[in-house]
Structures are given as structure tokens and as C-alpha cells.
């Protein structure tokens, strides 16, 4: 549980700056630096619905559902 709570906190931190841009989202110039240094631990995301749901059912823990774009104006390497 402690791990999940810390992950949830991290999720909020990351999500404030990590949303890819688009029509209704931030402009590219609004996107700041990554919240983490390379190599630092962040959220252990599940990246398919199937694995996430299977893990939630296994563990009995709730799901933080996040959908976002992995590009900004077509430029990849942004999430």
C-alpha cells in the first residue's frame, strides 16, 4: 500500500507536466523538463489494458487510468 500511495503521488507530479500537447492541451512551449532524471525510478506503468486489468484483479488494487498521446505534433518521445 505504501508503494502504491507513493506511486499515486508521483503520478500527479508527472501528470502535471507530462501530458502530450494537442488541440486542447498545452502548447509545446508549455512543456517543461522531465520531472525525473534519467535512471531515477518513476511509476511502474502498465501499458496495455489487458495487463493492467489482470494485475488489478490479482492484487485487488484500484486502477489509475491515464490515456495520453505519445507524441506532440507528431514528434515522438513525449508522453
Amino acid at each position, binding site marked *: 500500500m505504501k508503494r502504491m500511495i507513493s506511486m499515486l503521488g508521483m503520478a500527479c507530479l508527472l501528470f502535471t507536466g507530462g501530458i*502530450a500537447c494537442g488541440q486542447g492541451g498545452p502548447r*509545446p512551449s508549455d512543456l517543461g523538463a522531465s520531472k525525473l532524471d534519467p535512471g531515477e525510478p*518513476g*511509476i511502474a506503468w502498465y501499458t496495455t489494458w489487458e495487463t493492467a486489468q489482470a494485475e488489478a484483479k490479482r*492484487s485487488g488494487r484500484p486502477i489509475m*487510468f491515464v490515456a495520453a498521446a505519445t507524441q506532440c505534433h507528431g514528434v*515522438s518521445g513525449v508522453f
Partner: protein
Amino acid sequence: MRIDSYETKEHQEYVRTFLDGRFENSAFCLLAPNGQDWLTRAGRGPEMVLGHRSSVIQMKTVAAKYPDRKSGRQALVQDFHSVRQALNVASADQRVLVIVSGPREQTEELRSSLQSVTNDERVVGRFHFDFDETEDWYKQIKNLKAGPSIVVVRPSEFGMNGTVMKQLPLAAKGAEIIKTLLVANLEFAKTTKKKVYSSHVSKGTKLGIYFDSVVPYGEDRDGDGKIDHRGGSPRGGRRGDAPGRRSSP
């Protein structure tokens, strides 16, 4: 869980499910472990749904209602739908990517045997993991030796390709895999410049980087089923509903 809104038509439909039929770049909702019941209303992000100041507190409150039933040490291993997507996400998160490559009958066992690796406190949250039985992605990875293996990959700056940092046999022991990953992560951290996303996008645009998508880029904010033209009319009214039983994917 975090999915790419544009990765597949199915993902686009997931997003529409949470946004009253609209399609927007991002969506957020807390769901019960059954994946069906909404624990919060839905919106574009946690701050929209939970408030700017209380997001973390509210998520802690929700989490506290669902104590661990099973050990986190046996959490399932992450996967992606494709190496192409895994490279992109690993690049975005600035993490080393681990690809378990080989025929399903040879790699399936690793979905459970790797749990001791992926849930190790020195490993968790530092890497992305992907299983792939095809060879379609081989050309995207430099210095790759073809054949079943565990491939430790440094994603390129824009995640369009990657370079092998280390390659291990599928039969490698957990301790050896962990040791290899820790060394790779250290090297990656030392030699990777922290991303500033604004300059990243600007540089990518100048270089002509373009990540194709199955779903056309853009939003359908009026929920008519078609992607709006830029600046299309957003529909007012509710943004997701109160918690309750919903037909999530």
C-alpha cells in the same frame, strides 16, 4: 495504467468511453479493481477530476480503501502491443527498455519467472518491459543479434529506434538479469541528458521527426465521431460523470 490515446482505434474508443463520447488527447479516471466501476468522475487529467491541490490526498483516500490482497513482489510483468510503441514510450520516460524476444512457447514462462526481476526494488519503475514474438522490429535496433533473447535497449532520443546495451539468453538467471539491468541503467543515466520537452519537440519538428499513428491526430471535442479541424468547437456541459457502474472497456 497509462495507454496511448492514438495507438489503436480501440484505445480511442476507451477514451471516448470516459469522456461522454468525445475524443481528446488525454483522459483520467480512477477505477475499481474490476476495471468497470468508476471511483471518480472522468476528465482530461487528475487535476481536472480531483482538483489542483487535493489530487494526491484524494488518491491516497481511494487507495486506502483497497489494501493489498497479494504481494507486490508477484505483480504481473508489463507489456506493450509493439516494440515500436515500447521504444517511443521508453524514450519519452527516459528509461532503458527490456525486450523479451522469441517464440511465445519460449517466452511465455518468463512472464512469471521475470516477476522476481521486475518487482525488485532496485528495478521497479526504472525500466520498461516488452514481450515480442515477431522479428518486425529487428531493423529498428542497432547491434542486435537475431534470435530469442532478453535484449536490453537504449532508446534513441525520439524513440524511433534503439541500440543494444546488452543481450542475454532467455535462460539467464534472475540475479544475472538484475545485475545487467542495474549496470545498464547506471550507464544510461550517466550518458543521457535530461529531456526538456519543449526543446525536444522543437528539435524534432526541425528534423522532420514524425510518429505515424493508426488513428488520425486531433480531437473530437464535439463528440460527433469525427476528428475536429484545429480549433473545432468544444462541447460544454458535463465532463464525465459521478462515480458508479459504467461500461469501461
